[in-house]
Structure formats: C-alpha cells, structure tokens
C-alpha cells in the first residue's frame, strides 16, 4: 500500500514527459535524415517557428476548452472571419493597432456566440461549432467572393504600421520570430491560469464532473463560455499575425485546423471526455504536430504523407495514454 | 389538437414540418419553379444517395453512442479498390465485392480500435481518417483513374447501380430507400435494434442485461464501412472514374444530417425515419439555394445555420411538449 512514487518514476509516468520524448525523437530523426540537414538550417527553423506557432497558439485554447469538456470545430472559420474583418478595416486605412483590437474583439465575440448557444441551448458543442464552422466560413466566402486579396500592412507606410509588423512578425535578437514568442507567452499565461489560478480549478472540475462542480457552487456555464471566448480571442490574435506575415487575405486559411487542433491536444494527453490534461502537454502536442508538418516538407516527402503520420501519432498517443493511465493507477494503489 | 401534440411529441416531427416548408418555399420561389421540374428532381435523386446511404449507417452508429469520422477516407479508399480491381481485369461485380469487403474490414478495424482501447470513437476514427487518407494519397498519387472503358454504358452493372426506372426515376434513390427500409427494420423491429439502443443508453445497464456491447458497436462500425463501400462504387460509376477527392467532408456532413434528423450526439435517441429526413433535408437545402442563385461556396453558411436551428428547435419542442 505504502509504495511511494519516486521522483524518477513520477517523471517517467507523466504524460508531458512521454510527449517530450516523442518530440525529441522526431527532432533527431528530421535533423539527421533531412538532406544536408536542412531541417536544422536557421532559415527552416525560422519558418517552423513562425508558421507552426500560428496554428499552435490556437491549439492551446482548444486544449483548455477540451479539459472543460467541450470542443471547438469552428476555429478555422473564426480565423478566416477575423482575417476578413481585418481586411475590410485595412481597406479603410484604419490604424493597424485599432484593427488588431477590433479583430481580437470580434474573435472573442464569435467565441461568446459558440459558448452561449452551447450552454443556453444545452447543445453538445460538437454540433454548435460544427454549425458555426460552416456558417462563418460560408459567410466569409459569400462576402469576399472567395478571392485572395492583397492586404499588405507595410504599404500603409505609417509608423504604426511598422510597429505593428514588428510586434506580430518581427524577430527578437534577429532570429526568434515574434509568433513563437507570442506562442510561448500564451502558453505560460494559460498555464498559470490553468494550474495556479482558481479559474483553472473550475475548468478541471467542470470537465471532470459537471454535476459535482455545480453542486459546489461553480457556475459551469460561465466557465465553459469563458473558455470559448479564450479560443476566439486567440483566433483573433492569430488572424493579425497571419495577415502580417502573408500580406494578403485568403479565404482558405485555417481549413482543416479543427481536427488538427484536437489531434494536438490528444497527443499532449488531453482527454476527450474532459477533466484531464495539462498546458505543458498541450504545448508540446502542438509543437509535435507543427514539427511533423514542417519536417516532412523538408524531407521532401510528398505532403500527403503527413496524414499517415498524424494518424499514426494520434493512434500511438491513444495507446500510450491508456498504458500510462493503467500504470499510474497501479502505482497509486 | 390532441393529435397534433401527439405528433409534435415525436422527435423528428419538427424536422418533418420544416422539411415540407422548405420544399414548398423552394418550389414557389425558384425561378420558373425549376425546383419541382422533373429534371431537377431526377438530378437530385442521383446525387443525394452518395452521402445519404453513408448517413443511414452513421445514424445507427450514433444511436449506439459512437461516431465515425473516417468515412471521408474509407469511401475514397473503397472507390480506389474498386477501380484497381477493374484495372486488374476482373469483372465489375468483383470490384463491388472487394470494395464492400474492404469497407467492412476498415469498419471492423475502427470498431476493434474503439472497443479495445475504450477511447471515444471520435478520436480513434480521427486517427484512421488521417491514416487511410494518407495511405490512399500515397498509393494513388492523387491521380484519377478513369473506369468508363471497363463499364460500358448500358451494361447491366451500370444499370443496376446508376440507371433509371420508368425512364426517369434514378436507381440510386431506390438503393437509398432499400437500405433505409432494411436498416429501419433492423433498428426498430429486430432484436439487434434493441441492443443498439440499449448500448447507446448506458453501457453498464446493457452489459448487465447480458448484451455484448462491444460486439454491437463493432457490428455498427462494419455496417457503416459496408455502406461506404457501396456508395463508393455507385459514385465511381456515376462519375466514371476514381477521384481522390471523393467523400471529402462527408464525415461532418453526415453527422449534421443525422443531427438535423433528431439523432442525439450522446447516443440512445434517434430513429431511422429521422435519419432519412435529415439525409434528405441537407441536399434539398443545398439544391434549393443553388436554384435561388446563392453562390455555391456560401451555401455551407446556410447548412451550418440550419443545423444549429434544427437542434435548437428539436430540443425546444421536446422540452415544451414532453
């Protein structure tokens, strides 16, 4: 009965550790086998860190939402709608910082809509966000005509414009892309919120046993809605960063991200039933997915291989989490 | 009045009313009433069963409490098997046979993974969705394969899968009806159907009653796989080739159709008639809006809106009248 968990065993059994091991293996694999080790080429790393970070920022929010027991399939559509809002305001030559604030605000509002429909209508968020996913992308396509439109912030030529670009697409120390710093920043903030703040406790309780949480006086509807809003806000931030980088609006941005984000969370050890997961795991899971995507490109493996890899990684993490959970139960007994 | 309330209490009743409403609206508003023109109805009858047949299986699977996202890659995978069999010089009926077989096998694999790992099928089939899609893309190199030369028009095989009866009624719709009736009988009048509901209701209770819920789930996954195989062949014959993009987005559309038809995402609640209604409503919405000259790419906005409104309506009616 009194079998204490040694620090080492606890470390090995922690979910985040196993993701970390997988990540290191994948990194080694790509570094060693990419032609002329192009994977570790600074240029490629810059691409990886900026491009991958965009998806990963949103995945952080999706992971947190999954811990409180809900899904968001509409992230790609919120992203594209936010980008469209950005574009329209840009065409009015508004100060880019004001555009950014409005865009983020719109993202949060769309998240609020998801949350309200889900908790007020008592509809599974899977259906709500399936609906809003089709709705916002369809609406954006209708309004934009589905065309790619230039949206080059630097063309404004103002001081605010260059500051804006520095903030969202600049490089710290001439190397680290701003997007990656944003990603890290959000991971730390959300990590503190989830693990050290009272709100995080409510998120776990809501996802783990909603009835118990309610009985203990936690407003679970409010907690869920707040998590939806966080996801929406992150989509708004990414919309700004992405337009800054691409200097154009495309109506296809974010397609397929919804399932990828779920995959990233699951790889990071988040349970689909809610109540289990950690920010560290989600952080690493998002990186794993981004690295695989980038690495396969560098290895010149045709793009469609990524699907095989994603599929295998998801299935593998399902199996390994089963194993870890079993071991943990045994270790605690 | 009593009768009306009795009717409204049925879960898919409101969907039925809205469905009739939609048909009327489109019939009257479409320019020159094209919506009810026999040519439009015939075209609709050819197209909708591709997704519709798959939807029937998904509905049953959802009633027993599981999802299958992998249909979007199982379907083109079966279509590829079908085309490959033809290229190997075998008769089309062998192609159909192998497509069904592979469909069943992939379905079984989904079921096996789900019940063995005790993971939500949402995630296991997300894994197989990506995996089989990748395998298919690598294997087929994304190249379409024309199959017209193997299935001459007017051949029996073509007629059975994609012909017309009475000169205008598309066979595809007959297949859809046939599968709907078969699955309806299975679900509502056969012992197996009871097991499906019991499994979706509460695993422990079902298990306590001696029902092998793992087996029931696996069987439902296999049914979905087989239906994918069938739909794949039907679609390939209609478009005359294999295309890697077949079945894309089917996973979420099928779920949307089931939900519109009153199937619960938590299992246990739903009926075959509801699923059929859902499978009809989505394509009619699609088609009607096109005829009203809504740009094709924006139509998903309406389907999304419709999905949410239907669910809200169904939930509201249920609470109000029960």
């Amino acid at each position, binding site marked *: 009965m009194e079998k204490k968990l040694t620090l080492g065993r606890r470390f090995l059994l922690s979910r985040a550790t196993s993701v970390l091991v997988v990540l290191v293996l994948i990194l080694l694999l790509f570094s060693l086998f990419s032609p002329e080790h192009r994977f570790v080429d600074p240029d490629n790393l810059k691409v990886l860190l900026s491009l991958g970070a965009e998806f990963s920022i949103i995945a952080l929010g999706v992971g947190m939402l999954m811990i409180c027991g809900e899904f968001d399939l509409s992230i790609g559509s919120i992203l594209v709608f936010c980008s469209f809002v950005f574009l329209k305001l840009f065409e009015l030559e508004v100060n880019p910082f004001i555009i950014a604030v409005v865009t983020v605000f719109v993202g949060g509002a769309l998240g609020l809509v998801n949350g309200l429909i889900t908790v007020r209508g008592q509809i599974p968020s899977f259906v709500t966000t399936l609906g809003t996913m089709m709705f916002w992308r369809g609406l954006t396509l209708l309004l934009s005509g589905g065309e790619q439109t230039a949206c080059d912030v630097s063309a404004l030529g103002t001081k605010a414009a260059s500051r804006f670009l520095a903030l969202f697409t600049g490089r710290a120390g001439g190397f680290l892309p701003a997007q990656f710093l944003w990603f890290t920043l959000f991971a730390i903030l959300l990590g503190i919120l989830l693990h050290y*703040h*009272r709100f995080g*406790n409510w998120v776990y309780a809501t996802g783990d*046993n909603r009835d118990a949480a309610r009985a*203990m006086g936690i407003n679970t509807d409010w907690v869920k809605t707040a998590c939806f809003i966080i996801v929406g806000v992150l989509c708004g931030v990414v919309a700004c960063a992405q337009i800054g980088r691409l200097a154009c609006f495309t109506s296809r941005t974010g397609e397929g991200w919804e399932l990828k984000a779920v995959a990233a969370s699951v790889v990071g050890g988040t349970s689909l039933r809610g109540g289990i997961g950690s920010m560290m795991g989600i952080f690493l899971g998002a990186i794993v997915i981004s690295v695989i995507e980038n690495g396969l490109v560098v290895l010149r493996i045709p793009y469609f291989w990524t699907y095989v890899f994603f599929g295998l990684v998801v299935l593998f993490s399902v199996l390994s989490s089963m194993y870890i959970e079993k071991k943990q*139960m045994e270790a605690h007994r | 009045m009593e009768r009306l309330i009795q009717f409204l209490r049925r879960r898919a009743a409101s969907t039925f009313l809205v469905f009739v409403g939609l048909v009327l609206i489109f019939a009257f508003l479409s320019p020159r009433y094209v919506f009810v023109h026999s040519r439009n109805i015939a075209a609709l009858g050819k197209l909708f069963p591709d997704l519709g047949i798959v939807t029937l299986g998904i509905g049953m699977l959802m009633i027993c409490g599981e999802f299958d996202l992998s249909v979007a890659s199982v379907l083109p995978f079966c279509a590829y098997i079908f085309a490959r069999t033809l290229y190997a010089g075998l008769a089309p009926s062998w192609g159909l046979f192998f497509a069904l077989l592979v469909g069943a096998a992939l379905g079984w694999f989904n079921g096996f993974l789900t019940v063995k790992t005790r993971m939500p099928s949402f995630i296991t089939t997300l894994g197989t969705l990506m995996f089989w899609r990748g395998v298919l893309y690598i294997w087929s190199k994304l190249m379409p394969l024309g199959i017209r030369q193997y299935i001459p028009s007017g051949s029996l095989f073509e007629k059975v899968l994609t012909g017309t009866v009475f000169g205008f009624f598309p066979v595809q719709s007959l297949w859809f009806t046939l599968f709907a009736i078969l699955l309806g009988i299975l679900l509502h009048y056969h012992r197996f159907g009871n097991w499906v509901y019991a499994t979706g209701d509460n695993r422990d209770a079902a298990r306590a009653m001696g029902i092998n819920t793992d087996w029931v789930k696996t069987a439902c996954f296999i049914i979905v796989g087989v239906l994918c195989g069938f739909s794949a062949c039907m679609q390939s014959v209609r478009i005359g080739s294999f295309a890697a993009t077949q079945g894309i987005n089917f996973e979420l559309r099928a779920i949307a159709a089931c939900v519109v038809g009153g199937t619960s995402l938590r299992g246990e609640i739903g009926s075959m008639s509801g699923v059929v209604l859902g499978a009809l409503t989505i394509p009619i919405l699609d088609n009607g809006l096109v005829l009203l000259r809504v740009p094709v790419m924006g139509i998903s906005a309406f389907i999304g809106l419709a999905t949410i409104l239907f669910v809200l309506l169904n939930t509201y009616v249920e609470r109000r009248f029960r």
Partner: protein
Amino acid sequence: MERENNDFLVRMVNIHKWFGRVYALRGVDFEVRRGETVGLIGDNGAGKSTLIKILSGYHHADQGEIYFEGQRVSIRSPRDARGLGIETVYQEQALAPNLSISRNIFMGREPLRRLGLIDKKVMDEESMQALANLGLKLRSPDVPVVTLSGGERQGVAIARALHFKAKLVILDEPTVALSVKEVEEVLEFIRQLQREKVSVIFITHNLYHAFDIAERFVVMARGKKMADVKKEDTSPQGLSDLVLKSAFVAE
C-alpha cells in the same frame, strides 16, 4: 419576516415539483431539528433525491416554502445552499475523479493569494487536517480521487462538509456500491458528524443502515410523505413494512 419555532434547523412546507409532465413531489412537508439525524427512505423514484436537491439548490420547487433557522429563505443555486451551511454528498458522487484530493475539498472555495491564484500550501495542509479530523489517514493531498476506495471517497466528501462548518449535511445513498467494511467506515464518518452536532439527512435503501444511524425516519412514496416515525417507535422490520405499505397505498 415570518418567524418560526427555533427548534427546527430546516423546515420545508408543501413542496411541489414537476419535471415536464412528471409530478415528482406532491406537496411534501419535511423538517430537521438541530443536531438531529433523519433517515429518508422509500422506494425507487419516490422523490427522495428530488426533495433534497431542492434543499441543496440543484432544483427549484415549483411551489412551497423553505425555512432555515426560522427564516424564510429562497435557495436559488448550490452556492446559496452552501452559503446557508447546507452541504450535500450526492448519490452520483460529488467529487471530480481526476482532480486531487485537496482540489476536491476546496472545489469552488479555493484559498487564494493575490490575483486569484490558489494558495496550494494552505489548501494541502487544511485538507489533510480535515481528513484527519474524520479519522481518515491518506498519504498525500495530491493523489487523484479515482485512486481512492469507495469509502475513502465518501470520506473526502464528508470531510469537505465538516471542514466548511456545515450545519446540515445531506447524504444521498452514500453506501451504495460499497463493501461491508467500507460501509462501516462511512457510518463511522456520520457518527463523527453527529458528535460535532451537525444535522444529517441520510438517504438509503438499506433499512438496517438507516436504523443504525438515524433518530427519526421519513418514508416517501410517489412524491408524497407517507410516514414520519421516531426510532423508539419502530424496528428495521417495522420500517420495511412501512415502506412496502406506503408504496402500495400510494398506488
């Protein structure tokens, strides 16, 4: 403000409750005195859980009044109930299985430092103290609740009630699905509550457990209160007859 006889901790008067078309409570009167343990018994679906869920703010009565310590109160949410000092240990487990013991005990009432951050040290120490007060020795406040035995889990839930100075603890079938030894543990926890002069409502289907621990018994059937007897006026066999007869009469 209507004043009431001060003997009662809680008094529910003429409570009605519908769930859609299901008439779950049909005018129930129910009261608990200070420091008293009441056994609430009755057939499946009698309305026992519904009645106490109204008291704990989980459901709202469609009609009826509740008095707490003599004051007319309206309990609109679980938060209100906890504010009054009513704690509930639900039939469906009032714990989040994957959260740690201490996080469960302080769920919704986390001790805070600045900016809403949780004070984990206080939380852990007080959790262990609360468990020890109940005579429950657990290794660490950090282990998830799933890894505990059924009896220990109920202990955690009861320790939570005790720690927050509950005046009334409601236990809805806390012994269901427990082994004989674990049941004895839970009954011992309840005796600890009695020693601390906490009022207890104890719902169970096991009349022997009820008889063992309660001082008064309220029998329900089909949404109505059918009988209200003191311990000295009955026996386990008598209770069993009452439950059966009530179910029959209510038909």
